[in-house]
């Protein structure tokens, strides 16, 4: 079969060359080539950074006791995998982040809905929301420790506190920006404000909610790490603080790299949700 087919393929190849390439095909080709080039260069930057880091350690340009090195990070990571500490610490951080994220989403959508329904309520709460949003939330963490003790509750509350006020404000603003005439349509069809909310406001704000979630997942992680710095015996935040105190910089840097990967994965999950929504909405 192969022998028979080979000349055919050759023939079609030569034929293809004679045909003028359509501008569209040329454009697509150029686009793909550009795309591949970008991906390649991205990996190259990473590779360059890792090589520089590794060799400047080996050549004793930097002190690996303070700066660690890729090979030391990898071997520390393998140790973490083997003794299972990777799973406990990463698992606990991930769990806390997801719980805070979930609570942030529920609380902020709920509150923004209430504010949308009641103008009075939104006017009363506006200055409080603005102040709470601009307050550096890490200042609250010691209070949470006193009130809730050291443990998961404090950490989750810290995670929520970082994102929730900003999230309420941006969701409420999004809800408010829905076309007034579309709301009027619901009223002319005999609907009430409940119909207006769940037939028009909520569906038209799904893109706002999704982009808000993207911000929140990052902020939840920030809050959880702050919480773990102060009030934990487990988790990546704890490893970072503990590692720096006992000069185990391998531990610190490995934990930071794991955090990077977690942050990226969580963001990608929301991105995927958004993609899914767009695909459904577009069909």
């Amino acid at each position, binding site marked *: 079969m192969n022998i028979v087919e080979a000349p055919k393929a050759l023939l079609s190849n030569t034929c293809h060359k004679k045909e003028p390439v359509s501008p569209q095909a040329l454009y697509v080709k150029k686009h793909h080539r550009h795309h591949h080039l970008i991906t390649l260069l991205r990996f190259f930057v990473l590779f360059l950074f890792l090589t520089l880091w590794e060799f400047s350690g080996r050549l004793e340009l930097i002190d690996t006791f303070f700066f660690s090195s890729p090979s030391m990070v990898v071997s520390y990571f393998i140790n973490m995998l083997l003794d299972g500490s990777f799973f406990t610490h990463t698992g606990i951080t991930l769990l806390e982040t997801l719980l805070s994220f979930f609570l942030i989403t529920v609380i902020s959508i709920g509150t923004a809905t209430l504010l949308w329904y009641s103008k009075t309520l939104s006017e009363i709460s506006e200055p409080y929301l603005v102040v709470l949003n601009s307050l550096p939330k890490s200042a609250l963490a010691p209070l949470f420790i006193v009130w809730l003790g050291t443990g998961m509750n404090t950490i989750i509350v810290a995670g929520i506190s970082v994102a929730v006020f900003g999230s309420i404000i941006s969701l409420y603003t999004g809800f408010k920006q829905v076309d007034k*005439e579309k709301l*009027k349509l*619901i009223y*002319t*069809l005999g609907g009430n404000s409940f*119909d207006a909310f769940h*037939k028009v406001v909520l569906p038209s704000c799904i893109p706002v909610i999704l982009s808000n979630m993207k911000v929140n997942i990052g902020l939840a992680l920030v809050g959880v790490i702050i919480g773990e710095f102060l009030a934990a015996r487990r988790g990546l935040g704890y490893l970072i603080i503990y590692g720096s105190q006992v000069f185990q910089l391998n531990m610190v840097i490995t934990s930071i790299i794991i955090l990077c990967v977690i942050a990226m994965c969580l963001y990608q999950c929301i991105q995927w949700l958004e993609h899914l929504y767009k695909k459904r909405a577009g069909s």
Partner: protein
Amino acid sequence: MNQPVLECKNICFSYHNLKGETKALTDISFQVNKGEFLAIVGPSGCGKSTLLSIIAGLLSPESGEVLLNHQEQVKIGYMLQQDHLLEWRTIWKNVLLGPEITKTLSPEKEALALKLLSDYGLSKFKDKKPGELSGGMKQRAALIRTMVMEPGLLLLDEPFSALDYQTRLMVSADIGNIIRASGITAILITHDLSEAISLADRILVLTRRPATVKKELPIRLTLQENSPLGARNAPEFQELFTQLWKEISDEYCGGS
């Protein structure tokens, strides 16, 4: 037959803010008979839309009253300036929005919606999203959404103003014919005088703000063919247009 479907008695309305009150409507009285097509024209910003909102019950008048014929329990349908189809719903789901909200969705309503879709040439687009339709088709879908509620009185708030001129001629002819054929009572608000003449049985001219009824003009055209486009060719058209234009332009010049 000549029982009024709607009677407005001495309606007054003003808007309030801290700087003072803006009188929008003063002492507006008129009535609409069954099956009649009434057009309301007036200088821009004179409170035409406010009047429609009051008739629809979205606003309540400061004084005066809106009386609807009680014997027939008139339901009001309202068409807004833009189609406002919800872009995340299919045309079918958009058309059934009214029954869905009032929880009157029934097989009969669905049958009616299907019939209207095929009458207005939209059956093919039933499962499409509004984004895939042209402006005129969207406006027809919006009309179906209103008609599915089986209104006894249809309020049209410059429903063609968002369309470009050619589509506008087509759609206003279309919708005019549909409304005539269904024998429904309708009130049209417009600033397009020829549109008013070609569609309506009677035209109400409002004064500038605070608006009140300035003149009532019955429209009788001798027609070869009974269609809004044919109406524009009627011998009386030009004269009526001039007369209307004079009434309106007086309002513009009188104040400034």
